[in-house]
């Protein structure tokens, strides 16, 4: 007992020593999707300026929005932009708005497991919406086969797999389906969780990919990074210019560049089905949520300094972790928007 108490005391002492040494500690919470990127950035930034320590808890986008609104964290992070109602809730509570800052880009890819088919399939928006609405039930349906001439697709039933947990990945997927299918928009809509017309649910990217891998004739969607890192087979998707594009870092950044022209000043923009010949259509930004006013000037300057660094040097770390970097146009726009934080 005594020994345990002693160990605890020493650990506690050492911990307080280290905490006390960091002059400034900033806390944030939110999206899980960019967590590996953020923790790398915060670590690198701490190396650069050891007086600043940024703690980030990946509790999910919904939690990030809630906590930044409550004021329990200095900044939030989300995979889907806050809606008008949520922005108003923040404004009403604090008296000043919260700002969105895109950090990196992600994408969803369609993945499948058809016995005897090892080709990379092409999917039209109609096929994707049809499969997830339960209208297209066989692999050899003309909507799928028409885009994949030369591939011998079986007449088996498609087993749809989606995420069971609320997630930004689902938000991007359903946002895309809502744009390309009127029926999806009216019947199901977009969100971190939706009322799926068909299919089984797997928890997390690993749950979905696990189910797809072990269930013959399964079809699901996972994050691009996860698909790349676990070397999964995934298909191309037809974009708004009519070209079949396979998701990679270049085609995702191209989607963001294509959306720059129509990007509003608050950066709340969906880039699914973006224009551009080489744009991958199921892409999205992920955002930091930063209050526009800080009572603590030290924290404000530290956080602004970090975002500035993240937009410049920080972007060089993205591709090693399979995140697509921001297009130059967006970076320039964000640097200007930083001045709105007071």
């Amino acid at each position, binding site marked *: 007992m005594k020994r345990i108490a002693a160990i605890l005391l020493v650990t506690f002492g050492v911990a307080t020593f280290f905490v006390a040494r960091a002059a400034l500690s900033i806390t944030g919470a939110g999206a899980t999707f960019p967590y590996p990127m953020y923790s790398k950035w915060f670590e690198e930034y701490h190396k650069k300026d050891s007086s600043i320590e940024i703690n980030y808890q990946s509790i999910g986008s919904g*939690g990030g929005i809630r906590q930044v609104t409550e004021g329990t964290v200095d900044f939030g992070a989300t995979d889907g932009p806050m809606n008008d109602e949520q922005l108003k809730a923040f404004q009403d509570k604090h008296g000043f708005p919260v700002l969105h800052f895109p950090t990196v880009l992600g994408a969803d890819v369609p993945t499948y497991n058809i016995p005897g088919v090892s080709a990379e399939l092409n999917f039209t928006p109609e096929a994707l919406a049809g499969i997830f609405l339960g209208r297209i039930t066989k692999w050899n349906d003309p909507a799928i086969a028409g885009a994949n001439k030369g591939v011998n697709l079986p007449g088996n039933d498609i087993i749809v797999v989606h995420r069971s*947990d609320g997630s930004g990945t689902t938000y991007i997927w359903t946002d895309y389906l809502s744009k390309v299918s009127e029926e999806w928009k009216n019947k199901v809509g977009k969100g971190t*969780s939706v009322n799926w017309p068909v299919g*089984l*649910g797997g928890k997390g990217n690993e749950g979905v990919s*696990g189910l797809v891998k072990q*269930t013959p004739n399964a079809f699901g969607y996972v994050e691009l990074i996860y698909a790349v890192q676990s070397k999964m087979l995934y298909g191309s998707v037809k974009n708004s210019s009519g070209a079949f594009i396979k998701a990679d870092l270049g085609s995702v950044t191209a989607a963001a560049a294509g959306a720059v022209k129509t990007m509003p000043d608050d950066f709340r923009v969906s880039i699914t089905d973006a224009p551009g010949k080489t744009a991958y259509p199921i892409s999205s930004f992920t955002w930091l949520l930063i209050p526009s006013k800080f009572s603590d000037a030290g924290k404000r300057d530290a956080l602004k300094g970090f975002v500035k660094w993240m937009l410049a040097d920080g972007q060089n770390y993205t591709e090693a972790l399979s995140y697509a970097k921001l297009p130059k146009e967006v970076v320039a726009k964000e640097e200007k928007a930083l001045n709105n934080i007071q």
Partner: protein
Amino acid sequence: MSTASTTLPSAGPVAGSRSFFSRLREGDEIARMITFVFAASVVILTVLLVFELWNGSSLARHKFGLAFFVTRVWDPVFEQFGALPFIYGTVVTSVVALVLAVPLGIGAAIFLAELAPARVSDTLQFFIDLLAAVPSVIYGLLGLFIVVPLMREYVQPALKNTLGFLPLFQGPAYGLGFLTAGIVLAIMVIPYIISVSREVLLSVPRDQREAALALGSTRWESTWKVVVPFARTGIMGSIFLALARALGETMAVSMVIGNAPTISASLFSPGDSIASIIANQFSEATGELYTQSLIELGLVLFLLTFILNGLARILILATTQRGSDMGNA
């Protein structure tokens, strides 16, 4: 003046210490108070928990009312929420788990307590305790990567071919679903049933067995007709524990149940449970009504546990009553 002022305050501590000693002497009283506070804290915690769940779901309760219990839709986008598919899934998986685990667990406990040599019994008990301590996510992984493919490839086709005329075993074999979740739950609760039942059986007085043997019964007869009925209440207690664990299990269930809020007579169908959907959706839930509906589901789970425990208690009361009546006759 000065002497009075120095003696007066000193009277205080003396009087205080005297009453302190006198209170110490009545140690029984102190122990009673302290343990009472500890016991009361359980009640306070329960009340607080219900209060928080009740309070946190006020918006959802007012909006949906009792319809929450019978609505089949769970639609976060259009904010329509109903608990029925989740109640159904929770009850069905728990029932399947108990149907499988109770005979197996009690059988094993009888062997360990009555028939096995002490050394075998103790060694096996060690493994059972180990199983009871395995985190549920491990059981979930085991379920997802071993039970699910086995179910899809062998068990479900076999059941369909033999018992396929029953509505329970119809429909496509995904591998995931109510039956698989029930089986994984059964694997998880068996150690509890064995462990507790074995202890209870071992604590049956020796005289009982010896009396039965002296009256000419065989070893099995003394076990089945005397020892097991004697330990009945304790064995039922082990089943409660198993039921409670099955109702509230989250991780393992959510990995193998298929996470589709459906109500289907077929055990092959994917479903969803209350604990599973709360764990799945709470962290990303945005919007008051959505979060509050999830909290209300927590309240429903609490209520469900309460009702099922009550039903089980009534059942036990009825059976033990009958048992003693038979004993009298």
